[in-house]
């Protein structure tokens, strides 16, 4: 069985700065992966390269054994990769419900039912007709999360899902991520909250200055010298 995602020698630079510098990683299906690193280490750029938002200068990306680099973001999304953004990108003047409905095709009734189910799951069913832009930061984050699920993607990239979400909801969110994994989804998440990363991820990749400097189970990573150096300096 081919890996869910295979990134090989990915490189992209902005001017003279290598934002992602020869990163390779392999995600096996049905697992939760973490992506950590100091600010500016290239985590979001890597997400953007995988999802086609940012051009890449070299390297290849394969999803379920099929090359996806060079495809448009919407084509990649339709192949089954869903993502959230670090800075929230809900559609502010669409209602919470409409935010989920936009991606659906076919039966309107079924689409509405599924959207309401997902909103109920994040306890936002009472706010379904509210403009997404009027919701709190945490609520918008949840709308964005369930919006990704509308397409039922097999690979989900989450950019700092825990930031700004309150403790109770965070537990629900993490449980949801685990349940997605149990259903065979692959998840890669960028997260600064180490407790979340340690409690959730089976394998962690560490980026620094656009390079992958470590990879392994969270326990090992925490004691890795290069990682400590990247975070705290020598």
């Amino acid at each position, binding site marked *: 069985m081919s890996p869910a995602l295979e990134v090989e020698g990915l490189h992209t630079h902005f001017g003279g700065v290598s934002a992602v510098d020869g990163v390779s990683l392999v995600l096996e299906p049905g697992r939760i992966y973490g992506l950590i690193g100091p600010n500016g280490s290239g985590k979001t750029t890597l997400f953007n390269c995988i999802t086609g*938002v940012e051009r890449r200068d070299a390297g290849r990306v394969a999803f379920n054994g099929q090359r996806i680099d060079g495809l448009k973001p*919407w084509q990649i999304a339709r192949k089954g990769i869903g993502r959230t*953004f670090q800075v929230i990108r*809900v*559609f502010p003047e*669409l209602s919470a419900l409409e935010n989920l409905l*936009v991606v659906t095709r076919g039966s309107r009734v079924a689409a509405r039912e599924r959207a309401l189910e997902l909103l109920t799951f994040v306890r936002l069913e009472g706010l379904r007709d509210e403009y997404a832009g009027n919701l709190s930061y945490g609520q918008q984050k949840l709308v964005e999360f369930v*919006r990704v699920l509308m397409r039922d993607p097999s690979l989900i990239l989450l950019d700092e899902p825990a930031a700004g979400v309150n403790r109770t909801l965070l537990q629900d969110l993490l449980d949801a991520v685990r349940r997605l994994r149990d259903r065979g989804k692959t998840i890669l998440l960028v997260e600064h909250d180490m407790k979340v990363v340690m409690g959730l991820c089976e394998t962690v990749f560490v980026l620094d200055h656009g390079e992958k400097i470590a990879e392994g189970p969270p326990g090992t990573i925490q004691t890795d010298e290069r990682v400590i150096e990247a975070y705290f300096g020598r």
Partner: protein
Amino acid sequence: MSRRAGFLAALAAAAALLAVYPSVASGYGVRAGLQLFMWIALAGSWNIISGLTGYVSFGHVAFFGAGAYAAGILVVKSGWPWLPASLAGGVAACLLALVIGYPCLRLKGPYFAIAMLGLNEVVRALVSYFEGLTGGGNGLSLPTLDAAIPVYYVMGLTAAAVVALTYFVITSRFGLRLMTIREDEVAAEAMGIDTARHKLYAFLLSAVGPGIAGGLAARDQGYIEPVSVFPLATTITMIVMVLFGGKGTVWGPVLGAVVLFVFQELVWARFIYLHQLFFGAIIIAVVLLMPRGVLGLLQIRYRLPRTI
């Protein structure tokens, strides 16, 4: 539901009144009604591309002019009756939108607006250049024919069709997807929405109405020349009407067209220069005080449905 029934009844009554209006109105009255319909069709069409996707078209009058010339040429050179010629004007505008939409809709924000502005000048220059076909700067005279009343009806139907089209688009998921382009195009793409294709469809839909209206206006005026059918002022007026009434709403462009057109007709007659001053003042007031327009403001404040 009863509210909806009441609204539909009011709409039917308005349609009936407008249908019998020419039999009691003066020649001037019929022409004024016809022009009001034209403005509704133009503003409503601009709203479909710019109000929904946020891609501000500063050259939308190009479709009006293209429709006028296509219809005019078919009438004068090929002897077509004005009705099929006007519909062909809609087709011509649509083809123009297809040709220019493909490259131009890749441009974002102000670059698209400027490209559209340039496009209108290019089309106008082309029309002036091909004298053999278009009469160039001398214009094109259509055979004399008193068709004000039939043109009034067809223009009314065109306006109604544009409003109906807007209604169906806005209440559909296709319409929601157009709005996601306005809200956040990057996120829309990440959600699997083929934004390029959606923009192009919206652009094509927004060109048909002005094309037909241009053909009808050519018949009504009997004479067209490049400066009369490609004026930037027409685009500006469409934009102001939509901004005033409420962009992205179904009835906003209609409200804007009615209010501003009636206002213009009343003031125009008395204060030829002051009227432009009023118009400018309205633009500034709308942008400063209610950037969403009348209906947009009401929609947000009172959580009204998208069907307004």
